[in-house]
């Protein structure tokens, strides 16, 4: 298992797409932070919920972490390298587990970097515009730890999704359509259902002030459940399917 994990980490490190995703994540977080921070009025900047929104821009890293997870497994199917991988490690569950762990580590890294950027740039923007921070210690703690946890869990969810779908293009499209289209529609049309989606669970974990969300603990447990279900389903399908 250790060898498998080291091998997966090496693949993560040497994959150019992952570097691209990291760059994309940094760019997106910075642009969002500057846009929200610099365009708000003085009263906006002093508002608790607005400040929370600025710092929670870091949770955008979750989408990139999920893509890392999706790529970790679907690129092996795409390039046919899954065959030697499974010949060498016939216990396919171990391969999936190693991919989940390595993706989780990448997710933690993405989350930590995004949080660092959000708080670094966010504080600088507030200071430059003379706004005082009204978020309390508990808010900050939940934003920091919640964002890192959310990003890590989405990377695991990505591995599970990739293992279920197998086809890289379809898996990426499914992820983007869900996060960009289906989830927002569900959120707006049926908020009672929308509060239980993975995105709502992520927002709950960082204590997003939206009133209809779950508690941070409830959101965290729900997101863990989503990740676990996807990983379990993906692992089961990978173990059962023929490798073509």
């Amino acid at each position, binding site marked *: 298992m250790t060898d498998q994990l080291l091998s997966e980490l090496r693949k993560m490190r040497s994959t150019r797409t992952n570097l691209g995703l990291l760059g994309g994540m940094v760019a997106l977080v910075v642009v969002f932070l500057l846009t929200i921070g610099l365009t708000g009025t003085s009263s906006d900047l002093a508002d608790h919920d607005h400040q929370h929104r600025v710092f929670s821009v870091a949770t955008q890293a979750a989408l990139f972490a999920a893509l890392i997870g999706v790529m970790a497994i679907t690129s092996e199917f795409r*390039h*046919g390298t899954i*065959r*030697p991988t*499974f010949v*060498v490690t016939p216990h396919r569950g171990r391969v999936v587990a190693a991919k989940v762990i390595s993706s989780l580590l990448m997710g933690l890294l993405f989350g930590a970097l995004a949080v660092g950027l959000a708080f670094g740039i966010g504080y600088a923007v507030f200071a430059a515009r003379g706004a005082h921070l009204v978020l309390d210690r508990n808010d900050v703690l939940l934003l920091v730890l919640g964002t890192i946890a959310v990003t890590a869990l989405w990377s695991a969810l990505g591995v599970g999704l990739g293992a279920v779908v197998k086809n890289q293009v379809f898996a990426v499209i499914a992820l983007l359509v869900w996060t960009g289209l289906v989830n927002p529609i569900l959120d707006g049309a049926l908020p009672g259902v929308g509060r239980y989606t993975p995105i709502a669970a992520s927002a709950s974990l960082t204590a997003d002030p939206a009133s209809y969300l779950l508690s941070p603990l409830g959101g965290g447990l729900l997101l863990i459940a989503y990740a676990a279900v996807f990983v379990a389903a993906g692992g089961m399908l990978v173990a*059962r399917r*023929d490798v073509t």
Partner: protein
Amino acid sequence: MLSIVDIRRRFGEVQALDGLAFSVARGRMLGFLGPNGAGKTTTMRAIFGLAGLDAGEVLWDGRAVTHRQRLGFGYMPEERGLYPRMPVGEQIAYFGRLHGMSSAAARAAASAWLERLGLADRAAAKLEELSHGNQQRAQLAAALVHEPELLVLDEPFAGLDPVAVQTLAEMLLGEAERGAAVLFSSHQLDLVEDICEDVVVIDHGRVVADGTLDALRRRSRHRRIELRLDGAPGAWLPHVAGVELVERHNGSLRLEAGRDVDPELVLADAERTAKVVGFSYGPPSLTELFLELVER
């Protein structure tokens, strides 16, 4: 020795493998033949545990193949499987390590194989920068780097130019001489005829012929007769029962005759009609035998 014992696999309504059984001994090269969809690739995948079986066994030296033994096998799938952005030399060494070699031994073996395959100067290039033929050579190196006891190759000659085909054929013969059991599928039957001692022909997931190439050709119900005539009428055919025209071209005739037909009768009839400048008689080629075996 690799033994495939009564393996069965169904995909929905299709019985892909239907009690398939054959074996490959060490030091022998076996051509694994069959029309598209006969079950060749599924069989090869089953050898490596990549496709599940409903019944039957894959044995090595009479026992179920273990994981450790499988690490000593080499597999070149039809759909290639290498990392496109990884340097070729590093990649081959990586595959050697996956199969249990030490880092130093894997690097040395990778260099040696790239040298033999004419890729030494491309060792630092990324796989995606190589031509199709060179990528195929790199895939072969990945299958051979750990000196496998069993080598399984799915359509290894597909898409290669004649020089690359020759190089690959020599490599496979070398592997069999080294003592490896070599199993490969191909639709290039002339090539199989040239380099294989043994063949297995399968159809609909079942073995329809298995044995040495010579024995199978002799067992055929048909014989081929080739005649070159000077001055024969354009539509002339021998008046011998059981003889059929296969091809006529510029005074040359290729005939198919039943095994019981006396070739002397054909020759005598031809000599009564025209000057015979060439005559040959023998068992069918592998292509003809294949068509006879999988006739639909």
